[in-house]
């Protein structure tokens, strides 16, 4: 039962510590994850925007080379436009792009793409001067607009990431403070629980030790009171039963001793009365009165001691032994008459 009680105290403590540690790790990891996310997103978007700008440049170069006759194949151009489209399609995957300011820029870029693609396709294959001029002007205007849009988008992404990081740093400081307080509280609670657990053991042990001392002092009427409903409770009950039995046993001895004393008192007193009476008669009829009187006085003294001994036995309150000879005990009449504790 005591083990169960200890476990019942220890398990919640352990659970509290584990939950606190898990929550702390979870929260700290959340902050780190968000920091990484912001960092990754910002860098990825800036990188994509830069790639987008570079791709637009590459498309312009390809178109120029096709028209001056340096290149007659369109594959590199097609791949560049595919890449540009892929970059544009990839942008909305980043949450940062869904911020209103970034989204408006993105929408503007996205809306330009079909016209830009059509112009690039037309320009790549057109052979009419008027058409070439028309596509060139439109494609260049869209390319410049696309590149111009990339600048505020990059700037916004950097500013937004910076703001998010600052906000997160502030939250991180509060989190560290909160976790510190939580851990201090946990330690305090742990100490209190451990003290309570120690009390559960030490209090009954102290009482039992004190009771053992009382028993050592032959105070058999002393009882231990432990109300814990555990092994200590059982131990205290066992102690009390043992003390009770000892007390009963001691009382019985004293009663027996009293009965012995009564018997002796009865038997010896009768005998002594007879002797006394006979001695009185003998004293009256003695020839040498001086010598006889001395002897008779001695007999009376002995009889007096016998009488006192019997009285002592009658007044015995407990059984106290003393050495008669080595290895043989005898009743210490004087101490047996003394009250318990003297």
């Amino acid at each position: 039962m005591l083990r169960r009680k200890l476990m019942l105290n220890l398990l919640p403590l352990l659970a509290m510590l584990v939950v606190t540690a898990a929550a702390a790790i979870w929260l700290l990891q959340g902050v780190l994850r968000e920091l990484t996310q912001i960092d990754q997103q910002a860098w990825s978007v800036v990188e994509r925007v830069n790639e987008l700008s570079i791709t637009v440049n590459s498309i312009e170069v390809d178109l120029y080379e096709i028209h001056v006759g340096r290149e007659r194949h369109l594959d590199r151009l097609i791949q560049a436009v595919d890449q540009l489209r892929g970059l544009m399609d990839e942008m909305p995957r980043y949450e940062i792009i869904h911020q209103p300011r970034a989204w408006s820029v993105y929408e503007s870029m996205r809306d330009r793409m079909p016209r830009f693609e059509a112009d690039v396709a037309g320009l790549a294959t057109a052979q009419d001067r008027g058409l070439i001029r028309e596509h060139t002007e439109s494609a260049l205007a869209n390319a410049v607009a696309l590149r111009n849009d990339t600048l505020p988008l990059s700037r916004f992404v950097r500013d937004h990431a910076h703001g998010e990081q600052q906000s997160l740093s502030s939250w991180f400081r509060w989190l560290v403070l909160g976790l510190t307080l939580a851990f201090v509280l946990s330690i305090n609670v742990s100490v209190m629980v451990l003290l309570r657990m120690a009390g559960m053991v030490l209090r009954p042990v102290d009482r039992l030790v004190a009771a053992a001392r009382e028993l050592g002092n032959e105070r058999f009427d002393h009882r231990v009171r432990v109300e814990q409903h555990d092994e200590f409770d059982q131990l205290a009950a066992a102690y009390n039963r043992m003390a009770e039995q000892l007390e009963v046993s001691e009382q019985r001895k004293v009663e027996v001793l009293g009965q012995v004393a009564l018997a002796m008192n009865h038997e010896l007193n009768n005998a002594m009365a007879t002797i006394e009476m006979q001695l009185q008669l003998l004293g009256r009829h003695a020839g040498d009165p001086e010598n006889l009187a001395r002897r008779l006085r001695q007999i009376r003294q002995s009889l007096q001691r016998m009488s006192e001994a019997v009285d002592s036995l009658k007044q015995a309150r407990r059984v106290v032994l003393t050495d008669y000879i080595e290895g043989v005990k005898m009743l210490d009449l004087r101490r047996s008459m003394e009250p318990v504790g003297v």
Partner: protein
Amino acid sequence: MKYARLILMTSTLGLLVGLLVWLGRMPADPKLSPVRPKSAIGAATIPAGQALRIGIIPERDIFEQRKRYLALADELAVELDRPVELVTCSSYQGVLQDLAEKHVDAAFLGSLVAVMAVDRLGCRILVKPQGVDGHTTYRGTIFVRDDSPIRRIEELSGRSLAMVRTTLGGHLYPMVRLFQAGLTDSPQSPRLVWCGTHDEAIEQVISGKADAGAAKDIRLEAIERQHPGVKLRRLCTGSAVPENALAVDASMSRQLQDQLGKALLTMHDSPAGRAALERFGAARFQPCRIEEYDAVFDLVDAVRDRWQRLNLDAPAPNRR
């Protein structure tokens, strides 16, 4: 009992340590790892070996067109067990130049360029695609918007005509019709607007930038299907000629020619092949011979004496 308690305690401790380790090493949000969009180019597993280069001509939206041909090229690469590369030319003449300079081993060519490739370079026509609706040929056509006042070819005088250089539908056929209508020698001859693709020529007419256009009829029909609001009226339509056929370079080994032809002709037999053909926009491939191009030679013969005025930078092809 003692062992059970020991196992229980050890398991609990292990679980706790595991939980803490898991929390400590929890992976980052997958959303954080941006996945670069996989380019359609090179999506298939291309086997190693000498690449087969196939030229394509800018017939329509070059980006969409490349995706279509890429599906075919990827399947061909698997069938032929060698890489297949696509080479997109900016002009029809460019494909001829690529074939002449051995930059490509084969090319999908329009009927006029195919005839010129056979005539000038000795190329061999292997196969032609059969469309999903069953068509294997196309015709040149001159068209206007439905609301245009132009009713006859002769009324194109002084108007703009969107054309596609070095194509039968967008160049040879309309020029023949203009010659026949006597519109080329007049001071009021139509102003020719040279577009890069058939789709662009059609777009010029739809947008009103050109009064009339000349292109292949199947592209016209496709755009009309895609945009039901677009109403176009044909002024005249020529004879049927084979749809863009695959011509192979004369120097290509006969074995490879046969392999290539067989791979294309049997492509519709396999599920993967059918899927590739579906993405390409065809039901299957059919054999094709130069004899099927008689209508092209008829048009060439019609303008043979004025061939130089077509500015095709090549002599008129002869029948074989």
